[in-house]
């Protein structure tokens, strides 16, 4: 690191922003393609049902299939909004 770096404001570089965004999107897309074909449709349906009762974001529902030994576990994660 050059001495001038000490005077530079702490600012996130565009490359580190690119890396963060990529890590998020790539992880999500890998999750989607590693599961069974019906997962995206299932996720959309569950989101619809939940939205009949609670206003939640598009990405509030996450559905994953995990393999544990002989079992497949369908993991459903719903993030509800904070109550004011």
């Amino acid at each position, binding site marked *: *690191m*050059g*001495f*001038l770096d000490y005077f530079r404001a702490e600012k996130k*570089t*565009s*490359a*580190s922003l*690119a*890396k963060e*965004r*990529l*890590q998020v*999107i*790539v992880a999500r*897309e*890998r999750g989607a*393609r590693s599961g069974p074909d019906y997962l995206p449709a299932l996720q959309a349906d569950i989101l619809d049902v939940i939205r009949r009762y609670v206003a939640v974001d598009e990405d509030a529902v996450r559905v994953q299939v995990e393999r544990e030994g002989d079992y497949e576990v369908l993991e459903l994660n719903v993030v509800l909004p904070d109550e004011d």
Partner: protein
Amino acid sequence: MARIVVVTSGKGGVGKTTTSAAFAAGLARAGHRTAVVDFDVGLRNLDLIMGCERRVVYDFVNVINGEANLNQALIRDKRTQGLSILPASQTRDKDALTFEGVQAVLEGLAEDHDYIVCDSPAGIERGAHLAMYFADDALVVTNPEVSSVRDSDRVLGLLSSKTRRAEQGEDPVQEHLIITRYVPERVGKGEMLSVEDVGEILSIDLLGVIPESSAVLNASNSGVPVILEEQTDAGQAYDDVVARYLGQQREHRFITEKKGLFGRLFKG
């Protein structure tokens, strides 16, 4: 038994054809009988990059349709011994490549070649799928840029599920990363994803880094695979890629900044 290598990326314009031409020429120069096949039906370009566009008589689809045999369609490279080119067809018929047709052509080529390099079209449609389907190895060409990296990851997913090796439960396709158009100075300034960043996201073996270089355009202007321009940075980087692929140990070059006096003073 020939080894089939697909050069793929998902995204267009990242250097698949440049890489296919350089890699195939490098293998041939190392003494391996090599055929390089253009799978980009409708957008033939490998012939131009290899400088043999005026010698195309028959093409890939002619062979599939039985209008010519492989020997008639293969163009023997004039500069590099042991290198042949099978040009793509310029037909607009998207379904011109058939599964059985591609399989038969690759089997035909395998009889008297050591390596078959398949230059994939961009995208993930039929041509790209057929180019990767029979592959033993994949060179995944990626620019240090968000859309290219994301598309490469998508292609890696297809390589591990939609290929012959995946479907038949054989050893998976060996995936190798080639990062092209790399500018170490911009990486140093935090303006470009680094080799480490891309490697961390895609987590596959790094075969080589090709620097952004005027030599690539110069070579394509004159129809010479850039690996034959031995004095250039990109030519040498591709030479390293081929050597590593063939099992030699080579240090990665062209990945650190060329520092002038000024740069050294201010960056330490």
